């Protein structure tokens, strides 16, 4: 039941994008069309879960025993960067189709606050291994859900009479705010 609440909590209540403000650049940059937005969402779920597993292991079995916790920022970003490289190479070798659909999003993910943020939050919240996996996957799923809805709404905004000055990113940000307001509806659901 606790894990269930963790899932609900991280997808809806504390949505990584709309409540924690992580991963906003890709959220605004890759949400003009539904297709790429789905690609980005899937890529984030995949990479974020993997990255969390690696960084969690590195932190608990390398940094913590050595008393090097303060280096986690440095080490995590290197782990993520390396991981993304490997994943890219691996996917390219294994599946052309997957690479074509996900490949272009992978490099973007290196500098995605969401991935790094989830890795750091795992440590901050002191999750054990299972909790960590559940939290990472569902937080990233929250990202995917948000960007999916957002992209479908933005597609409509392109064919709406938005005032010229508000067109593009400006109205997208306002809409993201409204979406974040809507997600407040889930507040307290896990209590």
């Amino acid at each position: 039941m606790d894990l269930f609440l963790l899932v609900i909590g991280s997808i809806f209540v504390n949505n990584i994008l709309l409540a924690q403000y992580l991963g906003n650049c890709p959220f605004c940059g890759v949400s003009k069309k539904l297709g790429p937005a789905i690609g980005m969402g899937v890529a984030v779920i995949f990479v974020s879960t993997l990255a969390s597993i690696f960084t969690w292991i590195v932190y608990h079995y390398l940094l913590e025993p050595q008393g090097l916790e303060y280096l986690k920022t440095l080490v995590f970003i290197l782990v993520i960067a390396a991981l993304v490289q490997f994943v890219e190479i691996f996917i390219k070798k294994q599946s052309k189709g997957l690479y074509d659909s996900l490949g272009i999003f992978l490099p973007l993910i290196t500098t995605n606050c969401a991935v790094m943020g989830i890795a750091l939050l795992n440590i901050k919240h002191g999750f054990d291994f299972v909790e960590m996996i559940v939290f990472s996957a569902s937080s990233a799923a929250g990202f995917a859900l948000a960007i999916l809805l957002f992209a479908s709404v933005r597609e409509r905004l392109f064919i709406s009479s938005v005032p010229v000055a508000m067109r593009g990113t400006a109205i997208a940000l306002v809409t993201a705010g409204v979406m974040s307001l809507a997600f407040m509806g889930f507040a307290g659901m896990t209590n």
Partner: protein
Amino acid sequence: MSILDVLKPPGSRVPVPVGCALEIVDLPAPDQVLIPLEYPGQILFRPLVQAGDEVACNQVIGRSEHGNFIHASISGKVVELKTMWAARSFHVPAVVIEKNDTPPLVGDELLRQCDIDPQSATRVDLLRAAGVVSPWTTPGHNDSEVDIEDYPEIIQIVIKGVNQEPTICSFRLLLRTRTEEVQEALRRLAEIIPQARILLAVSKAEAEWASESFSDLAEVVPLSNDFRGRIERQYVGRLTGIKVPNNASYRSGGVAVISVEQLLDMYDALEGRPCIRKTVTLSSSRDFQPVTVRTVVGTSIGDLLASQNLVVEDGDRVIMGGPMTGTAQFTLETPLSKFQAGVHVLKAKDIVADTNLICVNCGRCTRACPVNLQVHLIGRCVEFDQFDEAQLYHPTACIECGLCAFVCPAHRPLLQMVKMAVNFRG
């Protein structure tokens, strides 16, 4: 308008047919006619006469590469050859004839002027010589020197016994007033194409009478009174199982669709009478009882309306065809051709102008569309230059019924937007 009409919901005021008198008024030929050398599909006709020529009624004055003919509808002198905007806004050549009393062409002469030997004339030859569309023509096909057997097989024939447009009654009245000829024509049709299933679509109000009169000659199918149930592409699709968009032909599915009028024209043609007359319903949005008249092709709509004392004022809209799919005319000189069965005058007071208001996403257009297009999205894509995006919604399937624009509370020119999506593709 009854008190209940006020309560009628927006969007439910579906166009329903106007009532009309049960007679067809025969008009005398006018003093001058203007005969457009046109077909839909922009098939080219060459004029066979020059200014100054004397022509007799029924004389061929135009010929297409496909071996079809157009006839003079009165005897007289060719005053002028000119080009004009025909009713559907095609630019076509036209022949102006001023009436005199030369006797009309009759008998074998009719065939000979088309280089057809009266002795060996096939049934297709007879129809061609009379300028009649035959149900077995495939678009773009050369009709000369073939007979029925050479065409792709026809499995079903749908005969339109009721007009699609709510303001037009000509087909209905032809069924009523020329019942025996229609019966005879149906018999002939069954002889010519024995394997075909013949369907006769009639208005619901007429269903009982029609079954009595025609049930042994054709399957009588009643159509609902409201426009939605009378859209040709819709009911033909429903009855025959062949659903095609506007720009595809039924013929590829073995289906032929003709009107009662065309059926009667065929009958006349086989009897040696060329097709030079046309039945049209005149109607107006105000103060005018619709009347159906029969007159020669080439009569200008100005003459036509004047003959029934239907006054057109500045700012009115004169529509060739019906109000749902017809074409507005900019002049009363436009002549009647074989393709329009009605003239409707929309008085200035009743005109609702197209606007550039925002689509409010009420979805009425989309729910009204008989072919299930996402009309509101196509309209928005066109409005905001997203033509590639618009293709995802299959605008080519539009059958131009006009219902989307009819129901739009923002009065957006939706049909035009859908057509733009088609024409500005990629």
